[in-house]
């Protein structure tokens, strides 16, 4: 079952800095990594979700000594990883429905708890993750997720947020940012793209449940993602990790820009990267090189209507104001940005 990973490149990000000192190396640098999401799956070139899932699940596998079970919501990750009769998953994995991954995770955790009690153990050595995209998490799966949170069930939920329903052809979700063009918020009319003043911030909602651990991460900082997964697996109870995963197809971006866009989302303040425990923010990743939102938005065709002639400078200003609010709210810069 277990096979060593063969590396064809060395010293790159993709193999996790394996030329670094052993203690600094990523999970991905090890030829003994679980390779939970194996090669050969059908994700698009440059898929942020495939990258995020591979790092997150491998890190969870290392943290648990490969004693891990995954529940997966319907969506891109499920479809591209398990076209019958193939599967890319190297761990026990179940897909039930679009809206129930968190509840399926709860059920698995309950079964494992009973098995542990029967074996005379305090906690099950086998742990549970549940995972889904932003639609399966913030919209259709939200009820089950909130229930899992409030009962403090022993499940780590991983949301791979690419900000729309990509699997069905890029429709708006409640994680779609304002002004973004999707197939159901077209770039037409006086107010093109998604509405301002809508959408929900799931990390903050998760925090409101006062669960032991909530964190955000992006695929631009894979070591940070790994560290947060490992920290999450060191805790029992409900945990939530919200990972920004750019989608080249849905965002209208070049597949080689996935990492860059994820980094720009953080460096503009559009996507705050932080950790919270029991409802309180405990750490934030400071912006190292603050840039205006335009640098993040311009490479994405979903925001093309904001630029050019006549463009929508008023919408651009609103997006900048939202990013500046994030910076103030989460103290992402040591000095608050000047008001526009």
């Amino acid at each position: 079952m277990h096979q060593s990973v063969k590396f064809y490149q060395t010293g790159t990000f993709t193999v996790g800095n394996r030329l670094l000192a052993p203690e600094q190396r990523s999970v991905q640098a090890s030829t003994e990594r679980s390779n939970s999401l194996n090669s050969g799956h059908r994700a698009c070139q440059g898929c942020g979700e495939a990258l995020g899932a591979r790092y997150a699940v491998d890190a969870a596998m290392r943290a648990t000594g490969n004693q891990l079970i995954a529940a997966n919501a319907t969506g891109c990750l499920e479809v591209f990883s398990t076209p019958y009769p193939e599967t890319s998953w190297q761990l026990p994995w179940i897909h039930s429905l679009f809206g129930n991954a968190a509840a399926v995770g709860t059920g698995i955790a309950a079964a494992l708890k009973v098995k542990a009690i029967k074996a005379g153990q305090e906690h099950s050595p086998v742990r549970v993750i549940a995972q889904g995209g932003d639609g399966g998490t913030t919209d259709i799966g939200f009820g089950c997720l909130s229930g899992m949170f409030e009962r403090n069930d022993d499940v780590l939920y991983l949301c791979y947020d690419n900000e729309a329903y990509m699997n069905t052809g890029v429709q708006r979700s409640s994680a779609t940012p304002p002004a973004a063009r999707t197939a159901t918020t077209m770039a037409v009319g006086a107010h093109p793209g998604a509405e301002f003043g809508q959408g929900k911030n799931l990390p903050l909602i998760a925090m409101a449940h006062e669960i032991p651990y909530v964190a955000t991460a992006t695929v631009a900082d894979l070591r940070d993602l790994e560290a947060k997964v490992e920290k999450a697996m060191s805790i029992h109870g409900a945990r939530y990790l919200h990972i920004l995963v750019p989608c080249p197809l849905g965002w209208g971006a070049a597949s080689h820009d996935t990492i860059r866009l994820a980094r720009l989302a953080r460096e503009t303040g559009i996507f705050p990267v932080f950790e919270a425990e029991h409802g309180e923010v405990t750490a934030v990743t400071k912006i190292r090189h603050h840039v205006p939102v335009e640098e993040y938005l311009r490479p994405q065709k979903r925001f093309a209507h904001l630029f050019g002639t006549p463009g929508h400078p008023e919408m651009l200003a609103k997006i900048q104001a939202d990013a500046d609010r994030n910076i103030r709210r989460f103290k992402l810069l040591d000095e608050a940005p000047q008001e526009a």
Partner: protein
Amino acid sequence: MLKQIEGSQAVAQTVALSRPEVICAYPISPQTHIVEGLGELVKSGALAPCEFINVESEFAAMSVAIGSSAAGARTYTATASQGLLFMAEAVYNASGLGLPIVMTVANRAIGAPINIWNDHSDSMSQRDCGWIQLFAAHNQEAADLHIQAFKLAEELSMPVMVCMDGFILTHAVERVDIPAQTEVDAFLPPYEPRQVLDVNEPVSIGAMVGPEAFMEVRYLAHAKQLMALERIPQIAAEFAERFGRTTGGLVRGYRCQDADTIVVALGSVIGTLKDTVDELRDDGLRIGVLGIHSFRPFPLAAVRAALEHAKRVVVLEKSFSVGLGGVVSTDVRLALSGLGLQGYPVVAGLGGRAITKASLARMLREAVADQLQPLTFLDLDWRIVNRQLEREAATRRSGPIAENLLRDVGTVASKVS
């Protein structure tokens, strides 16, 4: 042990004797007393090790059950009515995945208009979901069927619904023989899953299946139901041998041998029918009752064998396919294909309308005289129906139907006769 006990408590105690490992539930009348009973048993430690999870919806209840069953735990839940509909997507998923969950359905009407009382609309709405559906005629059978259901479900790796009439059975206090733990343990072996989420032997459960194999996967679900047709009577016989009473099985007849007229029914109304038939027999009518105890799989051959010597069949059902008529009747007709029997679907008891012996006797006398309509609604109040139809013909904004009818009836009390 013989106990004078509420139906829900009898079910709770027998489910407990089946050693469930995970129980999840969301409250809905009239299922509540069952899960309250189990919740107390878990909380007190009497059922340890067993997890009881209070979920946020029926959709979550079935989803938690899917997770725990796939992880190898014997899993139980209960619901009714709107709750069954709310979990419908997960109900289909559980059977599609072949997970042996056992669920009680405390049969109740579906709104609108909202109605908490008994009929069979809820489980009939899930007729084609792939679950085995067993129907209890009385509380002893409701209790016994749960033990049989776990055995059947786990042998076949298919989920089983045990349907019992809401309130009429769930809230009725009757004499029920609750077996001893050792007896149940000897009958029901520990759960050995066919598929399980196991870190030592990783599998992917729930992969996408395209046109190349989807039909085959679906056929195999049907093949399991056909196996259930054989196993259900065998399990009922094993149960009878060990526990000394006959409950479950596919169908059970009452005074059918020489009957010209046979009434087919499911659930608690079978008891009322037996009493009615006894009285009609005293008057010289050759009439019998056929109780269907397994609705899915539907026992076509057993129904045909039981009915083929009769002259006419009345299907008395607490379900209604709007725009067609009977639900069970359609299946019974299929069982009687090619036979020249007269068939009379009778829809009765919707939303808790009491089915009295007087009404049954009147209807059955008409049936014996071949005077029944092609579709009968037992005790339908044509006066208020026609009044509403007239109102709708007379004015465009005729208003909400339910409120109009209640105003016409002039009472909010349940109609009994």
